[in-house]
């Protein structure tokens, strides 16, 4: 399931509900991305996530479908927040459930790597010197590229 939310969300509460009561699940991997209070030596006072409503949901749904095609997943959850948020607050939660751990771990990392390079979100940081748009990082492109090969199952 995918969700784009424009206010705070609670990753622990979401994880408490995720795959609850399913006794066929042997492994749950999850990732939470949070706003940090600095980037290198620059303090970050706040972060605003802009997105492309409609295309965002479409791309996230496609990422979920691709992860399910590559790994035998029993459940998938992607929550991405948009709008303005403060250091320490969660930006994104990805959780995957499978019978075995490698499928859970790999699909979770895959979803984050592709989300970072394919889902239409843009980060605007507020620093003491003013606002600045976060630049895309080539390391994210490289991380995403490693999944271009068929999954080693």
């Amino acid at each position, binding site marked *: 399931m995918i969700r784009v939310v424009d206010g705070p969300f609670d990753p622990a509460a979401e994880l408490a509900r995720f795959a609850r009561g399913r006794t066929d699940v042997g492994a749950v991997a999850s990732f939470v991305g949070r706003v940090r209070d600095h980037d290198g030596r620059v303090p970050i006072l706040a972060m605003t996530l802009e997105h*492309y409503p409609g295309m965002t949901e479409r791309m996230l749904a496609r990422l979920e479908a691709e992860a399910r095609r590559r790994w035998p997943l029993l459940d998938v959850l992607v929550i991405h927040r948009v709008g303005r948020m403060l250091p320490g607050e969660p930006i994104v939660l990805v959780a995957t459930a499978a019978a075995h751990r490698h499928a859970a771990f790999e699909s979770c990392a895959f979803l984050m790597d592709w989300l970072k390079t394919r889902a*239409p979100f843009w980060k605007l940081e507020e620093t003491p010197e003013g606002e600045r748009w976060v630049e895309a990082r080539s390391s994210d492109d490289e991380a995403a590229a490693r999944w271009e090969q068929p999954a080693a199952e």
Partner: protein
Amino acid sequence: MRVRYFAWLRQRTGVAEEEIDPPAEVRTVGDLARYLAQRHPRLGEVLQSRGVVRFAVNQEYADADTPVGPRDEVAFFPPVTGG
């Protein structure tokens, strides 16, 4: 045709979206970009630089050769930075 701009490209056009009626010669995303560069000179400055601007047509990633028509939604935005 509806055109949308995101992140710092939006700050260069000064509008988030606009309805336009480009001339018939505008058949592809690349044609449209050249047309919009005249309309928004500060957008034009960056549309030249390869790799800086991404395109979507009807909410799907597109490239300069992707055809566009009057009923399409076309978006211009920088490389994504979510997650």
